């Protein structure tokens, strides 16, 4: 750094510091340690896609006109010339065909939305299977569940805005789902839509929901999510020198800032390439919404697919009694089931803590194999979700595999109840097997690849004993720290052969253990090489 720039930065820093007293805060922030593990980047993808969504969304707002008023299309897209349609659909066509770069902006926005929800879901899977949701991070788990549900809502509101045939059909189904709720259903859908479907108001209202209400809440929740994460510090996997009391990794500045900042551009680059090269939601091919028309084989965006599937799998049940109707064939798959699924997801940290009577704080992550019950519960839930999701496209599957459509539904109904427990049992067994294999290494040492021939002609492979520095003791009950020293049974596991958990592609080899007597509890206390 030259003296000139040094002076300039110093001057600017002094200016800010004399107003905000920021030097200590900024130094601590720059020294903040981030664990180096690939799985911690998934949440960042979600954050970065949200930024991309804000950037492209503001641009689209400048051209989109969210009104249901009927106009006659007179733009560049010849097949729809002269067709009556809503202003919303017409302005979407205008963005796609008559605004320079409008189509790529629309497509980047849509791809980023898919990536946003996808990365949230994968990030939650990471947090779930490694136990990162445990005390003290339950609040951030709840915020995360809220972010996911709002992300689904935001996505649905967004792709309903163009008022094309596909999105209008989705809205029609959403209206029916709302209407199915006993007592208040009819009232609330009439209030929301301004009357019977489709009404005049819904596009304008969804627009407000999509560009102001939900993004505002998302922004606030993401800020809270990040601040809590910053304050609580990251979790980390077990490894040499990593304890419940420290974080090992690289510092925010410069290493992590460069890597994380660069990663933003990579994510943006992927989405830009998709937006340019991969067509998504070609609304001009669907035509304007018309309640008397529907296209076969139409699919919603992927994150709505599980609801579509649960509606398709539902038996034709309906209660008619005492002058009222309760359509169980919509109420259960469309309202009750997602309510239970999201409810259990939100409550899981508290349920697990209650059942395991675990009141301790956890900063070291579990390997999924070490918590077979949690892992198999997670796989069970994911299988349930996955069956619903596949069944949202059972017509495509029937067409693809040339089997009867009705057969796919029956298969789905059976699979929904059969596959989750089956997958759960298989997962449990795999976890136990992996634990035993770890135990094997612990007892018999590491394979060296060196084969010796004894004078008697017998061949033996030389096993090297596991060194103490390579032991990564796994789930030690926090209430019983003495087990760290004592137990070497199946519950005390190793990550041997230098394969300390920490990096996906490259094995870690460093022994960074800090003598316990030198530990200090201070944000400023950093050890580095």
């Amino acid at each position, binding site marked *: 750094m030259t003296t000139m720039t040094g002076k300039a930065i110093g001057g600017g820093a002094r200016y800010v510091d004399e107003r905000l007293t920021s030097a200590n805060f900024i*130094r601590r922030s720059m*020294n903040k*340690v981030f664990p180096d593990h690939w799985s911690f980047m998934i949440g960042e993808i979600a954050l970065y896609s949200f930024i991309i969504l804000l950037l492209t969304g503001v641009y689209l707002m400048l051209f989109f006109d969210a009104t249901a008023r009927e106009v006659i299309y007179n733009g560049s897209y010849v097949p729809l010339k002269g067709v009556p349609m809503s202003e919303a659909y017409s302005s979407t066509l205008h963005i796609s065909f008559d605004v320079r770069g409008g189509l*790529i902006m629309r497509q980047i926005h849509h791809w980023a939305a898919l990536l946003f929800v996808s990365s949230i879901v994968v990030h939650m899977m990471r947090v779930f299977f490694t136990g990162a949701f445990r005390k003290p991070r339950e609040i951030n788990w709840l915020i995360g569940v809220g972010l996911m549900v709002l992300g689904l809502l935001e996505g649905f509101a967004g792709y309903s805005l163009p008022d094309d045939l596909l999105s209008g*059909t989705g809205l029609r*189904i959403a209206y029916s789902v709302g*209407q199915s*709720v006993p007592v208040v*259903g*009819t009232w609330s859908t*009439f*209030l929301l839509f301004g*009357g*019977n*479907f489709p*009404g005049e108001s819904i596009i304008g209202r969804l627009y407000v929901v999509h560009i102001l209400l939900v993004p505002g809440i998302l922004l606030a929740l993401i800020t809270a999510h990040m601040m809590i994460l910053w304050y609580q510090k990251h979790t980390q996997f077990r490894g040499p020198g990593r304890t419940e*009391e420290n974080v*090992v*990794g690289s510092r925010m500045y*410069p*290493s992590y800032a*460069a890597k994380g*900042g660069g990663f933003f*551009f*990579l994510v943006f*680059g992927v989405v*830009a*390439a998709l937006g*340019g*090269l991969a067509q998504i939601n070609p609304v001009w091919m669907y035509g304007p*919404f018309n309640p*008397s028309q*529907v296209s*076969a084989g139409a699919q919603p965006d992927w994150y709505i697919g599980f609801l579509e599937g649960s*509606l*398709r799998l*539902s038996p*034709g049940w309906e209660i008619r009694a005492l002058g009222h*109707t*309760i*359509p169980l*064939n919509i109420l259960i798959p469309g309202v009750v089931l997602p309510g239970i699924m999201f409810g259990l997801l939100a409550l899981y940290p508290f349920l697990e803590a209650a059942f395991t009577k675990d009141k301790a704080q956890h900063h070291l992550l579990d390997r999924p194999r070490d918590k077979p019950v949690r892992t198999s519960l997670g796989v069970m839930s994911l299988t349930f979700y996955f069956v619903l999701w596949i069944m949202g496209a*059972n*017509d495509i599957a029937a067409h693809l595999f040339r089997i009867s459509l*009705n057969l796919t*539904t029956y298969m789905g109904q059976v699979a929904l109840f059969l596959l989750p427990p089956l997958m759960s049992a298989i997962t449990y067994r795999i976890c136990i097997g992996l634990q035993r294999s770890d135990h094997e290494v612990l007892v018999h040492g*590491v394979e060296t690849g060196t084969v010796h021939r004894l004078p008697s002609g017998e061949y033996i492979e030389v096993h*090297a004993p596991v060194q103490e520095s*390579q032991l990564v003791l796994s789930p030690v009950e926090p209430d019983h720290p003495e087990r760290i020293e004592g137990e070497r049974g199946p519950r005390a596991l190793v990550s041997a*052969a230098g394969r300390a958990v920490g990096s996906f592609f*490259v094995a870690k*080899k*460093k022994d960074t253990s*800090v*003598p316990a007597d030198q*530990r200090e509890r*201070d944000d400023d206390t950093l*050890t*580095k*090489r």
Partner: protein
Amino acid sequence: MSTHDSAGGKSLTGNTSASAPGDTGRPAKRTSAKSPTGPEDVGPRADKRSERLVATCFGVSSLAAIAFLVVFWALPKTDVAYTPLLGVCLAVSLFGVGVGAILWAKKIMPDEEAVQERHPMYSTPEDAAKTAAVFAEGTEKTGFARRRLLRYSFLGAMGTLALPIVPIISDLGVHPRGNARQLKTSPWKKGDRLTTEEGAPVRIGDLEYGGILTVFPNGNTSPSNSLAPTVLIRLRAGENQPRPGRETWEVDGHVAYSAICTHAGCPAKLYEQQTHHMLCPCHQSTFLVTEHCRPIFGPAARPLPQLPLALDNEGFFVAGAAYQEPLGPSFWERS
């Protein structure tokens, strides 16, 4: 960097040249790019090479950004390659910055493994007790617990402040009392002509055997009349097995049913002549047309409502009566 940091810094007990059994290790270039004694890809020459590589990434990014401008203005926006080329240029320019920054961090910046101690995630009992005491003292000063009149009138005022929300919310839509009536009212009246999407009335002979046609009441195809779409189907004589009391609802093998699925309200119009199945593409409810459109598969619980048919004095199809039951998906007030 503050003096505290360097004073508090502790060198780790690890050895960089550890050679544990089976240890493939991280690439040596990552251990310390500044180490003069490292393997061949560190040292001044490698350092220069890394610097050139990173600079190339940034250079490619700049070129791609300029190419974006060229495509944006030079190519007609109707060109089939317009959007793909914009995407490629933008992606390359973004990738250039991203890859460059990450290579910069990995190849130029010295690799470090820093350890930071956590702060305890709880307050000391003394702190918690002090906070509780401050709160208790403040509450005591308000007299909230002692002064019942103040307490109840305050809570009452907060409660009544919620009341104005009710009319504000309820005016978002039409008056709730009208809901059920609106949903229960048939969009077809007795004598309404069955007209095609183009508005033409329909007469016997317009449909072949096994034919199906979407019809609207008196040319009203407005999307706001979303429950009105109806299908007219021509069956062969004797194929229809009407419900008792509905023998007169067909005219010369023609039958008419609401097109709106009784499950979630999509148009259930995929008709298979051979089997007389009518399928809703949304959730695959299947209705058997020859047996009063009763559901035979899928989530729908009720048959599609039937529209009684008649002919007017000019020979065109008309509704013999209004629909006898509410159309579309079920709702609480339906029956």
